[in-house]
């Protein structure tokens, strides 16, 4: 009984770490642009598809595949930024969001044209079985995921608080108009943030695909939904909040899956989001959101 609880908590934290990677990228984009990028998940999916393609055809190793994931995601992210967000920088948030949905359709169809099967194999991170700690099983992938999430958070913190680019980014988050007036190139900050977020997304896609050992076109919608859920649960636009929201989502899902099954697991996650939005606690609805 207690053992199940602990095992589920471990599994939940591992899932939460993967959500955290996605949510951090999502939140970076939302925090800076104040616009939701629905194509974020599909760009991640495209990165994983590119890597799966390289794996199928050239049998590349894991490091190369990770590089391809990141590179292709950044490329797809740049395309989305140019077409959906740069033109609407001062215009309509709805138009930008609908445009990003339109490109979601595109990215998904491109992936399915190049690789039309429903499912492609992706190499696992480790060939051996899960580790065993005093009766609890821990997958190596889970540890890597947690490590990667921690490292990425540290890296993002360092970029935001220790570099000139980070200073400019924080100024834009505070007020893009004031930042522009003080000589910061806002479009350049947008591109930088998009590249950073997409690179994080590419890494997340690599780790998620390697731990599922497969890629499907559903990865796009899955990533967008999980990222949005975690970002909203943690309070819109706050990076620590996104991490907390992601871990909470992972834990909630792991426990409700164990006790109630997969369908109710998803139902409960959406119910929680709906109820929280309806009640509107202060941390969920910051005034500048």
């Amino acid at each position, binding site marked *: 009984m207690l053992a199940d609880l602990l095992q589920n908590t471990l599994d939940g934290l591992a899932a939460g770490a993967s959500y955290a990677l996605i949510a951090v990228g999502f939140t970076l984009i*939302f925090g800076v642009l104040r616009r*939701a990028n*629905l194509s974020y998940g599909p760009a991640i999916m495209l990165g994983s598809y590119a890597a799966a393609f390289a794996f199928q055809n050239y049998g590349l190793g894991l490091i190369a595949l990770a590089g391809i994931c990141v590179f292709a995601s950044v490329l797809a992210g740049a395309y989305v930024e140019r*077409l*959906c967000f740069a*033109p*609407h920088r001062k*215009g*309509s*948030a*709805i*138009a*930008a*969001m*609908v*445009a990003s*949905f*339109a*490109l*979601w*359709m*595109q990215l*998904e*169809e*491109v992936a399915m*044209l190049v690789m039309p099967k429903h499912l492609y194999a992706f190499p696992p991170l480790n060939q051996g079985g899960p580790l065993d700690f005093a009766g609890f099983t821990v997958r190596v992938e889970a540890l890597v995921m947690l490590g990667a999430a921690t490292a990425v958070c540290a890296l993002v913190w360092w970029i935001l608080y220790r570099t000139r680019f980070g200073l400019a980014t924080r100024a834009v988050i505070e007020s893009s108009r004031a930042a522009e007036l003080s000589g910061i190139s806002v479009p350049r900050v947008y591109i930088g943030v998009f590249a950073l977020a997409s690179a994080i997304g590419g890494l997340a896609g690599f780790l998620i695909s390697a731990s599922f050992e497969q890629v499907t076109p559903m990865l796009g*919608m899955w990533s967008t*939904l999980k990222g*949005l859920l975690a970002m*909203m649960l943690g309070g*819109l636009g706050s990076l620590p909040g996104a991490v907390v929201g992601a871990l909470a989502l992972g834990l909630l899902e792991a426990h409700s899956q164990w006790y109630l099954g997969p*369908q*109710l697991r*998803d*139902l409960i996650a*959406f*119910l929680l*989001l*709906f109820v929280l*939005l*309806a009640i*509107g606690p202060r941390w969920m*609805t910051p005034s500048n*959101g």
Partner: protein
Amino acid sequence: MDDYLIGVLTNIGLFGFMALSAYLLLLAGEMSFGQQAFFGVGAYSGGMLTAMLGWPLPAAALAAMAMGALAALIVALPTLRLRGLYFAMATLAAAEMARIGFELLHWQVVVAGEPTGPDGTQGFRGIRWVFENGVEPGTYLAIIWTLLAMVVGLFIAMERSRLGAALRGVGEDPELSASLGLNVIRVKLAVAAAAGALAALGGVLYAHHNTYIEPRNFDIMLGVHSLAYALIGGLGTVFGPLLGVLVDIGLLEGSRVFQGYRMIVFGGLVALLLMVRPRGLLDEGTVQWIKRRFS
């Protein structure tokens, strides 16, 4: 008319209801990611009434619209004060709950020796009222387009009335509208209920056209597509959203030229169009210009 054309025109009509539902909410300043839920509520409740309980389609359609309006009110009440992404995400969460609800819905009765009714993820087959009552595809198409024309007529009448002004006022600036004495909450609830009923009407007609529905039909793709239709067609007139549907389903899906590339073409078209016309092809300015030209 050949069957293919009838099929395409039927689909344009069916998704026209969804596009108008999204348009109505956009006029009131609300972007919903969840209208697919009410399309689904209409499809499921209407299908259950005709296929399982033997109701005639017109009565089932009215009941389905009432169900859609009721469901929309249940979602609207707790989300009244939410805006922007918060509102979009709350409606998405509600719609995903509804979709999972359809997955969990198992209720079958034996009709003419066959178990009939929703069977979870296996879907709900045998919604055959239209076929059993000898309604030809062409006739069904005419029924759909007549209903759509009636809805368009209601929109035109509404936009000319004080109600239309109130609606756009609430959409533009709720605080200002409230200070002018408008009951913003009542307008928003009425809009939500009407948009829900409209989506449900589309849903019940869709279910009886396809004879088979499954929870997957009502996922976020449907909702965001409807939003995209309204937005690319334009927010200036009720014909804008219908133009949006026509471009996607009529031009791209209908003409077989783009087979396999439809989403790439449509997606690129939408993104490029929104760059030059962020409020769609037929936006308010264009509609004013056309009106001046022809009056």
